């Protein structure tokens, strides 16, 4: 069950088309950011219920005098409700970048806010934390960095007991973490890793999701492989992360998504994946994959792709570890249900999120490359045809599908006999006609294997006018040699 959070852009009353348009814009911005290796996103936690209770009027930009007024009221007001309201007004004003700027440049303002954050007045504390959270969400570095004086307290409160408050502190920390290396240079010595390791034992799902978010932010930063991941691996965090990814009735999707991403950032950094394997990471992830396929079958799959993506990546990367080369080892992934589950997910991706098909096929490649058993499973479970149905999706997908088929074919005659006769050859003639050189190249590789281990296929190829298709590529530099070799082979049959 998702712990639904509405973001800043609350689409109440929005037309679907506006939503799509906004999403396209955001997507473009994110792609650009990623290419520049500046992919940063922050999470804003706003309690919409209380927003509505406040009358839902537009928050005003606050000036210096007003900010000072609210701060003074909050600090020295005589009535508790009055003090709380003052902070609420400040918080709503802080939703505006202009107010944020004014606030941080006002002398003593952060000091006062920190004072309120650490007061024993519970509701003032909460409101002060919300103010801080607004600031942490700012896209302007100066604003987020102005929150630095509060971090030691945010970390201290992680070992408290109030789950709402802890959740708020965690999201705030998560936002601050990605802001700059300067912030992290303070948070690390302040003990953020041990603090998170202690807090992850909380039973509250909202706290866990927030913690996963904060940790994923920490693990995503540029210097993480050298500066952060080693100490994370040295703590109790890996065991807890894997525990929270165990499939079963207690698995919470929102929590699992965050920790799956944490695991992905750890694994793809290649620091010490053997440790994760020794903690049973492979079997946990494999079982999770099965669980997700089950969810798809029961059509309980809202947002499942958000979890599937990092899980697939983790599995694929873990499979490349040297530890996996030990045949029959304890941590092997040999269960053919994994292949079944993967195909169910591929079908799900095709319908809901085609951009994830390459990642699924990447896992299929890593499963089948060195495994006669999994290649046999593909054949015995009749999965070749479904695989072929993915060819038209895109060039990247085609190449991956052809690669997987090559994995099967290269194992020898026993495998190729099951690939032909069948729809494969006509599909290959189709892919040979592709304008994409890599697609054609991979098709040629597959053809070679097929001709080698199943000579009758060459005859069939000729009969289906395969030679004419080959001829088209005779002049292409990257393909010539292979084309000629195949023409020779086919003609000599």
């Amino acid at each position: 069950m998702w712990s639904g959070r509405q973001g800043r852009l609350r689409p109440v009353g929005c037309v679907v088309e506006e939503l799509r348009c906004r999403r396209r814009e955001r997507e473009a911005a994110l792609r650009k950011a990623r290419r520049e290796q500046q992919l940063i996103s922050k999470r804003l936690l706003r309690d919409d219920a209380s927003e509505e209770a406040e009358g839902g009027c537009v928050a005003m930009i606050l000036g210096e005098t007003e900010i000072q007024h609210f701060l003074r009221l909050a600090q020295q007001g005589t009535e508790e409700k009055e003090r709380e309201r003052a902070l609420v007004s400040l918080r709503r004003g802080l939703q505006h970048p202009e107010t944020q700027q004014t606030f941080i440049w006002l002398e003593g303002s952060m000091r006062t806010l920190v004072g309120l954050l650490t007061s024993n007045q519970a509701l003032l504390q909460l409101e002060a934390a919300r103010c801080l959270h607004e600031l942490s969400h700012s896209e302007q570095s100066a604003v987020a960095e102005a929150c630095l004086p509060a971090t030691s307290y945010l970390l201290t409160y992680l070992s408290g007991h109030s789950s709402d408050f802890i959740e708020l502190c965690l999201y705030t920390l998560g936002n601050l973490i990605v802001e700059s290396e300067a912030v992290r240079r303070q948070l690390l010595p302040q003990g953020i890793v041990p603090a998170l390791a202690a807090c992850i034992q909380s039973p509250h799902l909202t706290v866990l999701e927030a913690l996963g978010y904060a940790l994923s932010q920490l693990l995503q930063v540029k210097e993480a492989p050298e500066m952060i991941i080693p100490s994370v691996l040295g703590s109790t965090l890996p065991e807890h992360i894997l525990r929270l990814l165990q499939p079963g009735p207690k698995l919470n999707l929102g929590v699992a998504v965050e920790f799956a991403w944490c695991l992905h950032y750890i694994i793809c950094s290649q620091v010490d994946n053997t440790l994760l394997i020794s903690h049973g990471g492979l079997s946990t992830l494999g079982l999770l994959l099965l669980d997700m396929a089950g969810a798809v079958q029961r059509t309980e799959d809202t947002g499942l792709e958000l979890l599937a993506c990092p899980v697939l990546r983790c599995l694929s990367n873990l499979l490349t570890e040297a530890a996996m080369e030990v045949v029959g080892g304890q941590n092997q992934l040999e269960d053919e249900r994994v292949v079944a589950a993967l195909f169910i997910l591929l079908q799900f991706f095709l319908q809901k999120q085609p951009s994830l098909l390459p990642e699924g096929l990447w896992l299929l490649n890593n499963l089948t490359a060195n495994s006669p058993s999994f290649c046999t499973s593909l054949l015995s479970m009749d999965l070749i045809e479904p695989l072929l149905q993915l060819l038209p999706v895109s060039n990247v997908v085609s190449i991956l599908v052809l690669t997987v088929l090559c994995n099967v074919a290269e194992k020898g005659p026993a495998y190729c006999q099951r690939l032909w006769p069948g729809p494969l050859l006509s599909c290959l003639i189709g892919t040979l006609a592709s304008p994409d050189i890599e697609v054609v190249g991979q098709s040629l590789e597959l053809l070679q294997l097929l001709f080698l281990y199943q000579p009758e296929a060459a005859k069939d190829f000729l009969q289906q006018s395969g030679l004419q298709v080959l001829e088209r590529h005779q002049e292409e530099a990257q393909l010539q040699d292979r084309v000629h070799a195949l023409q020779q082979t086919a003609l000599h049959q």
Partner: protein
Amino acid sequence: MQLPPALHSRLAGGPGAAEPLPVERDPAAGAPPFRFAARRVRFPREHEFFEDGDVLRHLYLQDVLTQVTEAPERPRVPEFTCQVAGCCQVFDSLEDYEHHYHTLHRNVCSFCRRAFPSVHLLDVHILEWHDSLFQILSERQDMYQCLVEGCAEKFKTSKDRKDHLVRCHLYPADFRFDKPKKSRGPATPGAAVRASAEAPGDDGEQSGGDAMEVCSEHAASLPEPVGERRTSGHRIPSTICFGQGASRGFKSTKKKKGHQ
């Protein structure tokens, strides 16, 4: 994409690996001009292969992606009072009450009634402020432990610990949960009244709420006269006094005006 129906039942079945077909490779396979070799592929962090999935992740973080079911509204309940003896705070939501309770009543020192944000800090406080054995031992060995979770350092004095916190852990010099113990006694009824009866009107000076500050400063701001304090004492469990100090009374009239 049509999946064979048997696939679904296979998923529901037990674990098992297929008995592999015999592998028989010809050295000509993948030989030049061909180049195919079956191999597992790994992608590092920043590889462009991850672009689509990463964008998906970040769209989710920005909450644009999945319009998930609304967060349940905080249920408002009929007003109720905090049940802790001496506390008359009123609430109309369980979440607010939970936070109040954890902030003020959960990690409370039974000797001096000060509240702490965590069990850890409470334990450290009790050890350093109320344990006479600690005082004796600390003369001979380093007993003041670092407050940062995971740091095992100990120090001879509270000041040394503070220096460590500032230097190594980049803590603020005025970290509120590390005030040095003043030489006066730890137990005081004044503190008890302050901590457990957060009546409106008594908190004008309490903006800092320093858990470890000497309470007489706050006692000074209480509107109740001394006599009334004694009669209201029956609501407060008796505090344990280690006999170090006389009763405090309104000795200090120092008022702290804000924290600018």
